[in-house]
Structures are given as C-alpha cells and as structure tokens.
C-alpha cells in the first residue's frame, strides 16, 4: 500500500500578498498566415492602383489601370490571339520541361545510386549548372536551326540541371537505416529503389519540380523574346515596342496566372503523393 500522506506544501497559499502571477514569456516566433489576410491585401493594392489611375495620379501609358489590363485580356481572348500565344508557350514549356525532367530524373538517380555516375556526373553538373542557359540559345540556334528546337532545348537544359541536383540530393537524403532494413530482409535492388528510395526522395523531387517550373517559365519568356513570332514572351516584347502597356501588362498577368496554376498543380501532387508526411 502506498503511503499517501498529505503534503503541506501542496496546498496553495491563502494570503493574497504572497500571490504573484508568473509572467508569460512564450509569445511570438510562431508566424501564421491568416486565411484572408493575403487576399484582402491584394485587393487593397489593386484598389489603390485603380484609384490612382482613375484619379489621374499615374500616367496610364506607364501604368495602365487593372480595369484596362483586364479589358486587354478580354479583347485578346475574344480575338483568339491569347490562345495562339499561350498555346505556343505551353507547347514549348511542356516539351522542354518533360525532356529536361526525364533526363534529370534518370541522371539524378544514376548519380545517387552509382559511384561511377557520381564521380563523373557531379563534376559535369558543377561545371555546367551555373551557366545561364539563355546564354546558350544562340549556340543552340546554330546547332538546331531557328525553329522550335533551340527554344525547347534551352528550357530542357535549364530544367535538367536543377532536376538532376534535386533528385540526387533526395536520394542522398533517404535515411540509410531504411535501405539497410530492406537489405536485411533481402529485398532486391530494384525493389529497394522502387519502394524505399523513390518514395523517400519524392519530397525533394517535388520541391525540385516547383523550382524547375519557375525556371521553365523564365526561360520560355526569355527565349521567345529573343527569337519567336508567337508566344507570351514575344507578345510582351511586341506590346512593349509598340508602347501598348495595357497589352504588355495583360501578358504579364497571364504569365503570373500560368505560374500560379503550375504551383497549384504541384501542391495537388504533393497532397496526393506525400499524404504520409
């Protein structure tokens, strides 16, 4: 039997003079995004921008109002020009991104799993990754002609290096204890890659996709500005040259919406594939 004697020190003091609350020191350092704060701030900024334009505080040639920009988008959509430019850009981004991603995943896994590939691959990647890929476009035009190929190759190159790096970093970060566990159960190599390394590296790979989507968008606009008749980049450049700033901003807004849509797609993929986190 346990002795449960009363502890005289356990009862609270009764005299009020002795009581002093312990000061709370644990506030802050835990920022949380409010549910509507971002949208409210965005709407406020657009409202102020619109008011400044309407009141004549800003020259509409230099900064068209949001309403004028939306009108330009609407007219572009009606005329069919929006779809024409957008379809070219999407085709280039899609093809370049897929080619670069497939090559990057293959090379990244090879570097992550093979000593020979690591020795060779990391040297090449370290040497070539820092080169701004758009600087290679003239060379790629010389090699591949003036059609779609050099633009797609520029995007693919930009996507390839970042993908390869995120894939082999992901493979490197798969906990070794999980690999040893699988080996201890005689799980074959291909099954370890499929069931342990691939899902373990997936968070890093998807984070890489987010970065490469931005790189692809950046490169498609740059490449289209340098040498294309159609595409959002070419459209933005043409509008700038003709001082059609409402059209220019329309192109920028479309790019922003495209980037947001890609971001949402990757969020959806993460929710589906990384639900276990």
């Amino acid at each position: 039997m346990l002795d449960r004697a009363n502890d005289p020190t356990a009862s609270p003091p009764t005299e009020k003079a002795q009581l002093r609350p312990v000061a709370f020191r644990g506030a802050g350092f835990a920022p949380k995004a409010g549910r509507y704060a971002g949208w409210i701030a965005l709407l406020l900024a657009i409202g102020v921008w619109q008011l400044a334009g309407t009141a004549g505080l800003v020259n509409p040639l230099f900064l068209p109002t949001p309403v004028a920009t939306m009108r330009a988008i609407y007219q572009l959509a009606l005329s069919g020009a929006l779809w024409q430019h957008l379809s070219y850009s999407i085709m280039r981004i899609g093809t370049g991104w897929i080619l670069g991603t497939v090559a990057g995943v293959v090379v990244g896994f090879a570097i992550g799993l093979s000593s020979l590939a690591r020795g060779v691959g990391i040297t090449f990647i370290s040497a070539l990754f820092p080169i701004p890929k758009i600087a290679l476009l003239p060379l790629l035009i010389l090699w591949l002609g003036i059609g779609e190929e050099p633009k797609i190759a520029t995007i693919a190159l930009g996507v390839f290096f970042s993908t390869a790096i995120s894939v082999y970093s992901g493979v490197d970060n798969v906990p070794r204890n999980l690999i040893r566990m699988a080996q201890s159960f005689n799980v074959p190599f291909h099954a370890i890659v499929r069931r342990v390394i691939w899902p373990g590296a997936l968070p890093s790979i998807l984070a890489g996709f987010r970065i490469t989507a931005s790189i692809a968008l950046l490169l498609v606009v740059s490449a289209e500005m340098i040498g294309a008749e159609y595409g959002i980049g070419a459209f933005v450049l043409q509008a700038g040259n003709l001082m059609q700033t409402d059209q220019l901003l329309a192109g920028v807004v479309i790019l922003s919406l495209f980037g947001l849509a890609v971001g949402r797609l990757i969020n959806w993929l993460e929710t589906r594939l990384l639900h276990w986190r």
Partner: protein
Amino acid sequence: MDLIADHITHRFGALAVLDDVSFTVGAGEVVAIVGPSGCGKSTLLSVLGGLLQPSAGFAQLRGAPPPESLNPLTFVFQDFALLPWCTVEENVELPLLHAGLTSGARRAIVEDAVGRTGLADFRGTYPKQLSGGMRQRVGIARALAVRPAILLMDEPLSALDSQTRQLLMEDFIGLLADGTMGAVYVTHNLEEAVRLADRIVVLSRRPGRVREVVTMPMTRAERSGIEAREKLLTLQNDLWSLIREEAINAEREVQHA
C-alpha cells in the same frame, strides 16, 4: 541453426572497434551482448547480420534454417526503421513481396504477425500516427512475418519510455518462450539482459573483446516470479561490477574524443 561469431575483428579506418570476438548462438538460444558505450555492440550485430564486412574473422551459420523461414537472420532495429509512406500492413508485408508467395499467403502471414503483436486495429495506420511502442511492435511484426531462426535485436527498447519498455519486454519473453526462435539481443540495459538472455556476452571497452560469458542460472519462466527478483538483482550488480570501471573509462574516452 547456430550463428557463430568466429574471431571477428573490425576497424573503421584507424579506429579499432572489435578485436577477435568469438561466441556461438545455439538454436533457440537468446544471447545478450552488453558492454560499455562505444564497445562495438551494434557493429558486432551488423557483422553477424551480414550488413557489415568485418576486417577479419567471419559470421557463420551452422545447420539448415527452419524450412518455413524466409529470412533466417532478421533484424529488429533500435529506430524501428519503418517506411513512413507505408501503412502498418504494408510495412509488415514489405519483406514478403519478393519471397515468391501468393497474395493470399502474404495476407495470411501479415494477418498472423499483426495479430500476434496486438496491431490488428492499426492495419491501415501510418507510422507517424503511432506511439514509439506501437512502432516497435510493427518492427517486431515485420520480423515475425519472415519466420526468422534468429532475431538480431539492436537495443530495440532503448528509444522507448520505461512503461512501454516493460510491456514490450513481456512481449519478447512471450515470443521467445517456445524456443523455436533464438535471438542476439544487444543492450546497454543490464536489467533487460538478465530478464531475457540465456547467456550474456560481456564486451570490454573499445576495441570490444569478449571479457566474460555469463550463463543465466535459471530459465526465463523462473525469472518472472517475485522470489527470482533478488537473484536477478544480484546478477545485474555482478554484471555492472564487470562493466563499471570500463564504462567510466569509455565515457572519459568519448568526452575527450
């Protein structure tokens, strides 16, 4: 099937970790390995389980494994080593997927292993949703699924709180009771060693050498009674006196490293 540590020596670069360690784990026998921190207990277990090539010596098997065994030497890991993207059921099934079993046979084995470890209600749960004790139960269920001849347990309770440790220790005693499965049980906890082992291999500080092999004077069943407690405590103290001086020196070594 016997597992033999045959003059095992291992070095990590210039650091000698194990020096000429030899002992045998007989069929159905539970051998605990104790010793000061850093004496090479886990390294020895990795060598015995084929996960590490020793610098010299061999880990050898004598005799045929039980015919139904899919993985005669099976690890239970200190950190559980569960795939976080797999459910309890999928984790237990992993070692069976490439064993040439039909899906029906796999299902039956998983059901049995999950049932034996009290995980029947947690089949679809992910590891992050489980407590440490339940995670280790998944690790044990996975090990049982391949019907091992010898379990290689690397401090399987050290990451758990004392109450969970107690409960899992009782589970281990139950699982090893019929003598069909042997175990090498690496631990720094002498209480676990004296409760579970048939023999205790005491290693010296690094480089680990076999300092003494203690044979337990009573069966595991006899150890559960109150009257055995005093004897076990005496044994534990004897083991501690063997290790204490070396543990102090080993700790100083680690601090100065």
